[in-house]
């Protein structure tokens, strides 16, 4: 079948959508489909969002492909009679973050938010089927869009490329550096940590100021020796090395949609420390079995870090169970391809 896989992407950002689209395209091709990946630039500045939504709406792929699979919002505005949406996330500042992290207030912001709601209603209504990338996202679709849909986890095709060397003397926190990922919370926690564990944060900042602010925080708390801040994309090899060598992985985002970090940590036989409001990771992490789940609060997080630093055999036990949990999840491409092309 001729299949177009479409998603919006932010130029220069190596976000999940790009990775997701690439891996899905490869999986569909392996199954013998003729697949083309369509990456559409989309800059999520609300003040320029309405025109960009219209730019997408004007594109009709009816004659190009038999099936259109849409990923990141609002790529489902593309026109096609046989459209399937694998919903990654909403424009969250207009939905679940509307009260906590809303888009900046402007004379147009109410009208723009209404346009976002309307475009989601339209695009999702047109779809033949909608799948959610996680339960968190499925719950939001039910709450905000009155849509009940099946959860389809992304396959984890290269889980075998992760390994575990040891349970070392540092905690690893890999992620884009952004307020919602809460690197600042992790740094603040380090001020309360009593053991000599170190924290390695690596990832690129969405906007350079976020990295600057984090640096100031580290310096202000006098944690330069204990917190290592790598403010750039790490290559895949180095990322795997850090997973392989750390004691455990820390990932405490706010309401994450899915979070590749969870399954990557599990693949490296590492426990995941996350928070009660972190969203996606909670679908995989069970407190005290394959990780630790604590309140999103510096002292609570520090307690969890000290707990594992003071009991390495426990960090290992949780990590080994995490690896087994990942195997049980059986995140393969076959069922995903099956569902999307049904």
């Amino acid at each position, binding site marked *: 079948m001729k299949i177009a896989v479409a998603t919006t992407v932010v*130029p*220069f950002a190596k976000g999940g959508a790009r990775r997701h689209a690439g891996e899905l395209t490869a999986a569909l091709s392996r199954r013998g489909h003729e697949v*083309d990946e369509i990456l559409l*630039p989309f*800059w999520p500045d609300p003040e320029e969002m309405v025109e960009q939504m219209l*730019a997408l709406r004007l594109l009709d792929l009816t004659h190009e*492909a038999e099936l259109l699979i849409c990923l990141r919002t609002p790529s489902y505005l593309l026109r096609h009679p046989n459209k399937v949406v694998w919903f990654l996330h909403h424009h969250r500042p207009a939905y679940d973050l509307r009260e906590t992290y809303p888009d900046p207030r402007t004379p147009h912001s109410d009208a723009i938010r209404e346009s976002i709601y309307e475009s989601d209603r339209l695009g999702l209504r047109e779809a033949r089927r909608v799948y959610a990338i996680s339960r968190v996202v499925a719950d939001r679709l039910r709450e905000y869009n009155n849509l009940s849909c099946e959860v389809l986890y992304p396959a984890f095709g290269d889980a075998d490329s992760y390994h575990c060397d040891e349970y070392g003397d540092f905690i690893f926190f890999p992620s884009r550096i952004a307020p919602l990922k809460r690197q600042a919370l992790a740094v603040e926690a380090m001020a309360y940590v009593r053991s000599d564990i170190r924290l390695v944060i690596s990832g690129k900042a969405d906007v350079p100021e976020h990295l600057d602010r984090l640096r100031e925080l580290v310096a202000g708390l006098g944690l330069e020796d204990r917190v290592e801040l790598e403010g750039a994309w790490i290559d895949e090899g180095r990322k795997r090395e850090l997973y392989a060598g750390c004691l455990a992985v820390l990932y405490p985002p706010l309401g994450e949609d899915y979070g590749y970090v969870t399954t990557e940590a599990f693949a490296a036989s590492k426990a995941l420390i996350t928070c009660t409001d972190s969203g996606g990771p909670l679908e995989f992490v069970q407190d005290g079995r394959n990780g630790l789940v604590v309140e999103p609060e510096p002292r609570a997080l520090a307690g969890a870090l000290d707990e594992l630093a003071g009991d390495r055999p426990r960090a290992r036990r949780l990590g080994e169970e995490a690896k087994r949990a990942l195997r049980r999840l059986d995140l393969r491409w076959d069922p995903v391809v099956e569902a999307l092309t049904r």
Partner: protein
Amino acid sequence: MKVVILSVHVPFVRGGAELLAGWLADNLQERGHETELVQLPFRWNPPRVVLDHMLSARLTRIRPADRIVAMKFPAYLVPHENKVLWLLHQFRLAYELWATPHQGLENGYEAGRVREAVIAADDAYLPEARAIYTNSSVTSARLKRFNGLDSTVLYPPLRDPGSIRCESYGDYVFFPSRITPAKRQELLVQALAHTRSGVRAVIAGAPDVPAYLDPLLETIEREGLGDRVELIPEWISEERKLQLYANALAVVYPPLDEDSYGYVTMEAFYARKAVVTCEDSGGTHELVEEGVTGRVVPSTPESLAEALDELAEDRALAERLGHAARERLDTLNVSWDAVVETLTA
């Protein structure tokens, strides 16, 4: 700086423009620029969808970029304060191909209105660019003729010219290209039937559609050219191609009204081979000068045959033209250094 290369993509089709955009991205990156390639989907039938694509491009926002290098219609309509154009061609169906057998737009009232809109959009929005570069003087001349706009020619370099070599001047002429009527492989086969020197031809390239091979095979059969024409109807490996360039007597490249000089011409020149082309071949004339770096002859089998015989019977001539061809390249300043510097200036 952060550079976005902006082009278009016809879903499920890969073309030469995409290769060039990819090479440009590689070369920008090698020189320290953060680079992203953005390709907007495009189609043109029925003609009215061209209007949708134009409007869609106008509404598209490219952030965060310090520079946009736009290469094709309608992607170059995307507004940006720091946009430069490296134009491969405009929407040819609305310009030089309009009202020709190659028009390619379903005919009728609608197509006419769409054509007017394309020209109006080009007139209005092309001047937004900080600078307009083109791939050839043919493209620049059209821009001047149709839209009254001045532009500067910036020749696209080959990806890796250093690998091209010359070993000998053998007993065959080489014609590497997609097999398609506009490239006129059949003209070469017919010419072979008129040659007296026994010169051979190697024609290599994938046919756009399998049926394009039929007339070639029929002519070869009818004229009994089986042992003088080697037809390789597929993409040949880079190494095989270099080998065939290296030992050819000369290169034949007689397309009909090509936009630009064509990569074949430039590859031939790096391999120190004269290029035999036709008076109606268009862009090839930018590099091929009659009697100096190759031959430019009328597009008839007889004229082409005569040119091939002359080269086959006078290898020293083939060699002399080939060396002049290589020297001609040095006067052009075609390099990725120059391209990157110009487009990011």
